[in-house]
Every structure is written in structure tokens, then in C-alpha cells.
């Protein structure tokens, strides 16, 4: 009986402690709701369609009916009409669209005459999930087209042919490497450095440290470089393991891939430092880091390309370092692009790193309150 009393006292004490930490409490209550809200906002009804290129080499009325059906299905958004198959494929190669739909010459006539014909979908194999999605949706659209049009033109058959660029098929290990590297290079350094300054505050060492004539930028850059040195070793080890032990395929130049990864690592450290500079204690910093990671996971192209999310989610996505990293990494790893081809993403990552560091210097107060 007395033991139960002690146990009860212990439980009451812990509940009290939880309730008296308002920030954690907000986190506990708000986090699940915020995540759900974000998820619905990004992936709910208002989803965007897959950007594709159409190459209509036929030009006849039946081909335009097919294109119309394709557009009204809601799965696709035609971002360009290319004059030749080569031009269409090039747009897919350049990443302007996830697929090209090529309607061959004589398509309309074949349908009207009741002959069998075909359409060609050129898929971007470097986005395995999307190409699968495009493929299935294209087949569905063509089938419903056949059903609807057969009443008018009699029986005919359209074969959906599948071609790929950067293919033919990307193994799932290769395809998920960018995701795994993204998580490792983002979450690990960010949460590690996020607690660095608040730990000094909690252990009181900050009070002695800021009695020396250091400026905030020295404290920020000092932590940044120190954590970079340690986490880069971690990154190199992960990379070596992936490429040399697991045999992950790298189509582009390895140095380019390493550069992009390094940039994400530095950017994550910068962001973590900013979190650290504004947090009052370690718990708060840790929670903030995790909280920040959630939109990164949802809106950066982690599960699904950002272009397919709702417009609001896309806007958020374009602010996230992980978005630029995933794009650049995939392009280099799976498409074989070089660093110059991802110059935009590289610049964005570098600018964000600088912005985070500058913000951290600005908000860091050399005080103990």
C-alpha cells in the first residue's frame, strides 16, 4: 500500500512537471495537429497535376480529342507542345516535365479506319514514383478514350508504348539514396548543433564565455566550423558506405554529388545555429529542430515531387533547403548531370546558409536572460 502511495506521488509529480512546462505542452498538443494540417494543406484536394509535354505529330481531330480528355482527367497539366519527338524528349531530359506524350503521324486516320495504332509515353525514370503514376494515368485515359470513341468510330485499338529517359529502370535503392542522404544530412547536423548554445546556457558556461571580449559572429562561426568539421567526417563515411559498400549507382560526377551534400550539411548547421540562438534551453531547441523537419519532410519532394503539391505547399517547399538538395542530388546521381546543371540549386543552398548564419549572428544575445 505504501509502495502504491509512493508510486502515485511519483506520477503526480511527473504530470505536474509536464503541465508546468508550457512550451513542451504546446509542442505535445500542437505538433500532431500542425502536422495533420500541413499534410492536408499539401496533399489534400487542392493537389496539382503532373506537368507533361505533348508532341502531336498527327494534328488530326481525333488526336485533339485524346489530348482534351487527357487534360480534363485532372491528372496532367500540359506545360508545352513540342513540334518534334526529339524536342519533347529533350524537355523531359531537362526536367521541364515528368513525361512526354507522343502521338504519331496518322493517328487520327488509323482510329477512324478502325486500325490499331499507338501513343508513346516518354517517362523520366529518375523519378520512379512519378513515372509509374504517369504511366498508369496515361493507360487509364487511353482506355476510357477507346471506350468513348468506339461508339463513334467503331472498334480500333491504341497501344500505349513506354519509353524512358535516364532509364530504363532505377532500382529502389538508387532512387531512395537521395531521400536517405537528405534525412541524414539535414536532421542529424541540425539537431546536433541546435542544442549547442542552449547547452552552454543551461550549464552556465555561457555566462563565463560572454565575459570575454568575443563578438556574436565569433561564437556563431566558431560553433559552425567546429560542428562542420565533425559532421563532415560523418558525411564522408556515409557516402563511402553507400557508394562502395552498397554499390549505389552514381551517374554523374562524384565530386559534384559530394559538393551538393556538403552544402546541405552546412545549410543544416546554419539553420540549427539559428534555432540554437533563439532557444532558451536544450529541450526547446531540440523540439524546434524536429518541428522544422516536418515541413521539410512533407514539402521538399521527399514523398512526391513538389510540383504536384498544392500551390501553398509548393511555395513553402521552395523555401526549404532540402527541396534544392533533393533536386540537385537526384539530377546528378540519376540523370548524370554536372554541377553547372544544378547551379540554381547550389546557389540557393549557399545563399540560405549565409542567410541562416547572418540571422543567427543577429539574434544571438550576449546576455544571460
Amino acid at each position, binding site marked *: 500500500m505504501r509502495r502504491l502511495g509512493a508510486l502515485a506521488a511519483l506520477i503526480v509529480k511527473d504530470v505536474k512537471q509536464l503541465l508546468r512546462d508550457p512550451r513542451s505542452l504546446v509542442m505535445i498538443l500542437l505538433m500532431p495537429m500542425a502536422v495533420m494540417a500541413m499534410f492536408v494543406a499539401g496533399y489534400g484536394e487542392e493537389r496539382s497535376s503532373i506537368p507533361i509535354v505533348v508532341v502531336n505529330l498527327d494534328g488530326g481531330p481525333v488526336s485533339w480529342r485524346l489530348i482534351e480528355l487527357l487534360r480534363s482527367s485532372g491528372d496532367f497539366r500540359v506545360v508545352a507542345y513540342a513540334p518534334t519527338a526529339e524536342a519533347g524528349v529533350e524537355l523531359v531530359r531537362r526536367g521541364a516535365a515528368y513525361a512526354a506524350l507522343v502521338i504519331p503521324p496518322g493517328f487520327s486516320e488509323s482510329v477512324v479506319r478502325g486500325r490499331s495504332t499507338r501513343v508513346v509515353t516518354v517517362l523520366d525514370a529518375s523519378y520512379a514514383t512519378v513515372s509509374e503514376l504517369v504511366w498508369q494515368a496515361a493507360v487509364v485515359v487511353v482506355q476510357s478514350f477507346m471506350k468513348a470513341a468506339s461508339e463513334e468510330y467503331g472498334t480500333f485499338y491504341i497501344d500505349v508504348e513506354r519509353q524512358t529517359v535516364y532509364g530504363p529502370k532505377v532500382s529502389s535503392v538508387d532512387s531512395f539514396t537521395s531521400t536517405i542522404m537528405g534525412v541524414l544530412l539535414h536532421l542529424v547536423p541540425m539537431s546536433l548543433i541546435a542544442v549547442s548554445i542552449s547547452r552552454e546556457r543551461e550549464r552556465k558556461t555561457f555566462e563565463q564565455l560572454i*565575459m570575454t571580449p568575443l563578438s556574436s559572429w565569433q561564437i556563431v562561426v566558431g560553433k559552425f566550423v567546429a560542428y562542420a568539421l565533425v559532421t563532415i567526417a560523418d558525411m564522408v563515411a556515409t557516402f563511402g558506405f553507400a557508394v562502395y559498400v552498397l554499390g549505389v549507382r552514381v551517374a554523374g560526377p562524384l565530386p559534384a554529388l559530394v559538393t551538393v551534400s556538403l552544402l546541405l550539411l552546412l545549410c543544416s548547421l546554419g539553420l540549427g545555429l539559428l534555432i540554437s540562438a533563439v532557444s532558451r534551453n536544450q529541450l526547446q531547441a531540440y523540439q524546434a529542430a524536429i518541428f522544422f523537419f516536418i515541413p521539410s519532410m512533407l514539402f521538399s519532394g521527399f514523398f512526391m515531387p513538389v510540383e504536384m503539391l498544392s500551390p501553398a505547399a509548393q511555395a513553402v517547399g521552395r523555401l526549404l533547403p532540402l527541396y534544392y538538395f533533393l533536386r540537385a542530388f537526384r539530377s546528378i546521381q540519376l540523370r548524370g548531370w554536372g554541377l553547372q546543371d544544378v547551379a540554381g540549386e547550389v546557389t540557393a543552398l549557399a545563399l540560405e546558409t549565409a542567410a541562416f548564419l547572418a540571422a543567427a549572428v543577429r539574434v544571438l544575445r550576449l546576455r544571460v536572460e
Partner: protein
Amino acid sequence: MLAIEAVNLTKVFGGFRAVDGVTLRVEEGVIFGLLGPNGAGKTTTIRMILGLLKPTSGYVRVYGIDVERDRRSVLRITGYMPQHFSLYEDLTVEENMRLYASLYGLGRGDAEERIRELMDEFMLRDFRGRLAGKLSGGTKQRLALAVALLHRPRLLVVDEPTAGVDPPLRRYFWGKFRELKERGVTILVTTHYMDEAENCDRIALMSRGRVAAEGSPLEIKRLAYGGDIIELVTAGDPRPALDGLAASVLEFEGDGSYSRVRLLVPDASEALVPLTRELEGRGVRVVRAYQVPLSLEEAFIRLTSRG
């Protein structure tokens, strides 16, 4: 010159006035004691003086430099030993000292020399390779003081340096403080030990965020009691003979033949002899006359327990 000029410092936490209009003027080269019960606001005042907390109102100048405007110049000439051990517990004694020597911008040779000196002065040589977190309380305090002195500060601020320190080391610390003072260093110190406070040139007694009294230890005691206390042993009752003299009776004890009285006088050293003579002249035989040593502790309690 004033080493510290803190004017009208106020710090409000939430709605609570931890420090409420404190003004301190500390002359260069003195040992200035900041006393007061727990929670009086000593640490908060110190932190505002050092720019570690932003005052809600008021300002601070250290050697004429405005702390808010040019804190870094103040830091170069100020050493600080916080109330709680604040060095890196996962670094060794030597690593901590080297780190802070670099942070204070000491050159290589100078740092070496200074670290060697301070290790000898504070008996740290045997512990140089030990993690600071694994040191005993007294050794931690020695290390903290050594680090605070690395850059030869002109102002040393020490917050309860002798808490948890054994009596020989306490004495050693105060010896150091006096040595530093002789070299012209100004020292602002807080303590709860009244015997230590007697060593201060000046004292400010804080209570509930305000300065309740300020002055030399002697002045503080006079303020608390309203003057000095002398004790007389006389034949017979001297009280009627005290009429018209600048002395009031605090205590009286008599057995008919001899009496013992405690008198309150403005200044014992001035009053003792004339008073005795006057009483003798009035026919009271004074057997013994002496000044009663007042305790600062008693004065402290009297001054701080007042509403």
C-alpha cells in the same frame, strides 16, 4: 577615479522588482563588499554591472566606460568569477586556462607565463590534467579565480568566491584580494560570511532589491546600533550620574554593590575616556571601562530584518 558607477539600477523580472533603484559608486583600488540575504538581488546587480543582464532602467560605467555602449572595452579590464562554477567541466584545468587565455587575446608567450604563475599561485599544478568537472569544490573555486585573473583585470568581480570553501583557503583568498588591492585592482565581492566582510573597505548592504545601508564596516555597525557600545563596571548605580551626558543606557545589571551598564555612545574611541572621567568626577567609581566589539552579523540582521 570611480571604478564602478552604477546609477539607479532596476531590474524587473516579469512583474517582480529583483533590483529596485540601486546606486553604487566604487572607488578605484578598494575592496567593496555587496552583502545581503538570499534573494536580495546581489547577483542580479552584479550581472547588470557586467552587462550580462540589461537593466530595466539605470546605467553603469566601469572606469568611465559606458557598459551598454562599449561592453567589450569593459570586458578587457574586468575579471569575473560567477556564483556557480561556469568553466567547461569536460575540459581539463589546463585546457580551460589556455582557452580563456586565448579568448582574452593573450599572446602565446604571455599566456604561458600567466598560466604558469597562476597555477603556482592557486596550487593548480597537480590538477592540470584533470577534468574540471572532477575537481573538488575548493579546487574548482581556485581554478575559477585563476581564470578570472588571467588577463590581469583592473576590476575583479567575485560572486560568493568562498561559498563551500574551507577556512584556510578562505583566508588564502582574502590574502589574495588584499594583494590585488595593493596592486591597485578594484574588487567587488559578495559573501555571506561576516568575518570576511570586515575585510572590506566599504560595504553596501542590500535587502529586497534595495541598498539598505552603505559605508565602512564600522559605519554600518554604528548605523545598525545607532552608535558604539561601551560597557562600564562601577561601584553603585551610575545611572543617576549619567544625566546630561551623550550616552544612553541599553542594559543595566546590578547586585546592589557593583553594577554593569551598557551604554550607547556616538563614538566609543572619543567617548570612553572623557565619560569615565566625568563619572568619576561625579563620584562614581568606575572599576572597568571598555568598548564592546559589535558584530557585523548582528548589524546585518538588524538592518535587513527591518520592514
